[in-house]
């Protein structure tokens, strides 16, 4: 039984994947780095937000600020993750730009493992949940069905942030620097571009997007250990089938994968993930460079 709700569910999942894959694509486009550690930004965002909301609400249980705290928590989560990302870029990631892809993937895989254990050290193995934003907003009537307003808000926020990022890249001066670096990393310094700083900024943006995705999802799913694995893999799939480094590709790819996943859950709950990966494999078998990607060398 399919309905609007399935489409909305797909969109909500797509919006999270969109934020994640946009970050992946940004870093890949500028620095030619495939960052497996991207997933840890997602889970860090989720943990920080849930942690903040939990603490803040225990202090201000009766106050008028009750409505504001969750949103503050989401913003703080995303910004904190951006800061962590910038720090990480300054210390480790910047040594990864010029090494071979295998070593990049392995090094960032190591970062993913490190962060997952850091989360365990700080927050323990418990589930950290913060359902207040969803509860506070209540439900909305969509074509005869009641649907949580927070989900709609999430879709709107993440797609508008994504489109804001497009505008940032295509309309502002910093965006021009980022694009110039992504076209030719070797020529860019010749034009007076500080490539190292551009790389830091893009990494910070990508961490921000991933942290935001995690912060936005935590009221719905709670923060758990290992929560980053599935979205990370799906975001990779989205980036690859959309075309690595292509922004519109990640938009189309995330909507495709999000909707497929939601339809898969509705129709074939047994093999939902398998269907998503199967479609991805078919797309790649037909169009190796992804839907909107540029052809790459042999």
């Amino acid at each position, binding site marked *: 039984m399919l309905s609007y709700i399935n489409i909305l569910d797909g969109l909500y999942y797509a919006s999270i994947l969109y934020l994640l894959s946009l970050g992946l694509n940004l870093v890949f486009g500028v620095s030619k780095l*495939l960052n497996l550690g991207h997933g840890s930004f997602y889970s860090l965002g989720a943990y920080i937000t849930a942690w903040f909301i939990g603490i803040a609400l225990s202090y201000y249980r009766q106050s008028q600020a009750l409505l504001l705290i969750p949103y503050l928590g989401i913003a703080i989560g995303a910004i904190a993750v951006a800061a962590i990302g910038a720090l990480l870029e300054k210390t*480790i990631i910047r*040594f*990864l730009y*010029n*090494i071979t*892809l*295998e*070593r*990049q*993937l*392995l*090094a960032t*895989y*190591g*970062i*993913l*493992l*490190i*962060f*997952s*254990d*850091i989360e*365990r*050290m700080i927050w323990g193995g418990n589930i950290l949940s913060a359902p207040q934003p969803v509860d506070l907003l209540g439900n909305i009537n969509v074509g005869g069905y009641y649907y949580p307003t927070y989900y709609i808000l999430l879709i709107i926020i993440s797609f508008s942030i994504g489109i804001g990022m497009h505008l940032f890249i295509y309309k502002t001066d910093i965006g021009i620097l980022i694009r110039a670096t992504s076209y030719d990393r070797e020529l860019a310094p010749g034009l007076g571009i500080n490539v190292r700083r551009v790389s830091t900024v893009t990494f910070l943006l990508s961490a921000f997007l991933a942290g935001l995705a995690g912060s936005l999802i935590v009221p719905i799913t709670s923060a758990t250990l290992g929560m980053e*694995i599935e979205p990370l*893999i799906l975001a*990779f*799939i989205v980036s*690859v089938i959309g075309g*690595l480094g292509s922004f519109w590709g990640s938009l189309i790819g995330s909507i495709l994968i999000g909707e497929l996943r939601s339809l898969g859950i509705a129709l074939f709950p*047994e*093999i*939902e*993930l*398998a269907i998503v*990966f*199967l479609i*991805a*494999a078919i797309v*790649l*078998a037909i169009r*190796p460079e992804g839907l909107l990607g540029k052809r*790459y060398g*042999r």
Partner: protein
Amino acid sequence: MIFVIFTALLTVLPYLLPDYYIIVLSYALSFAIASLGFNLLLGYTGLLSFGHASFFAIGAYTVALIARYMPRIYSLEIVIPIALGVSALSAALIGAICIRHTEAHFSILMLAISMIIYSLIFKFYNITRGSDGLPVPIPKMLGLSLSEMPRSEYITSIFYYILISIFIASTFIMYLIVSSPFGKALQAIRDNPGRAYLIGINVKLYRYYSFILSGIYTGLAGALWSIVNGYTSPEIAHWTFSGEIAFMTLLGGYTLFIGPILGAIIYTFLKLYAVIYTPYWLFTTGVAITAFSLLLPRGIGGGIMDIYKIMIYNKEEKRKVVEKYVRK
């Protein structure tokens, strides 16, 4: 020469070490076969697969499923060839899709396919018993039933010798493969696919062959591992296990032939002690992986080789070796 010493050492080890270490070593040797196969793809063909765990799981589940559904033919000399065949077949199928890509696309596609296999194993509860996993009883051998034997005794006595003979045979075959013209062609493809194509090497076909061989090795390793472990669970199909195989290879050094073997043995024992002494095993591994891929890209084996080279070489050649680490 090294080969002979190694063989002799493996053969006498059960008399020297307690059973416990022999069991850990059996795990290490089955991982070593997997990372040998993995390294044919990474070190010799230049393709990083982030989904080799799926072949490992296919090998292991072939054994476990035969034990469950066809106990009549559940005998070691039948099970192992079937596992080889099944993993070859699945490698041929998966390879037909994946090998069209290189670099990151290949890695990600392999990751996706391994996750398909993971979720299939996980979700088809009726066949694979999902996350409960399947038991792998002690197989018959040449019509001889050994099921009364305690598992630890079986692994440290009969199966240990079977394992090391398979291990040595597969290492030897792998050595023949990489030093044959076919192996040299693969290395040419790794270094420069365009030039390899121009001198008349069928790049895609050779990559495909290498992929299938690599899948067979990993499947064999999975089959042996399942008998050592006595139990299979979907965890071994998860992509983090692919990461572990990759890490073993990197730890030992993927530029060396014996690197993967060294890496698998070091990794297994390292993990044993790390799990005993610290609850934060992932953190330790993560730091090690990141540090290795940044500082010591040629792994422990490569590092030892380089120190040896620095000791015997003259000044000019010394500089070349050192530059590999300093550059970047």
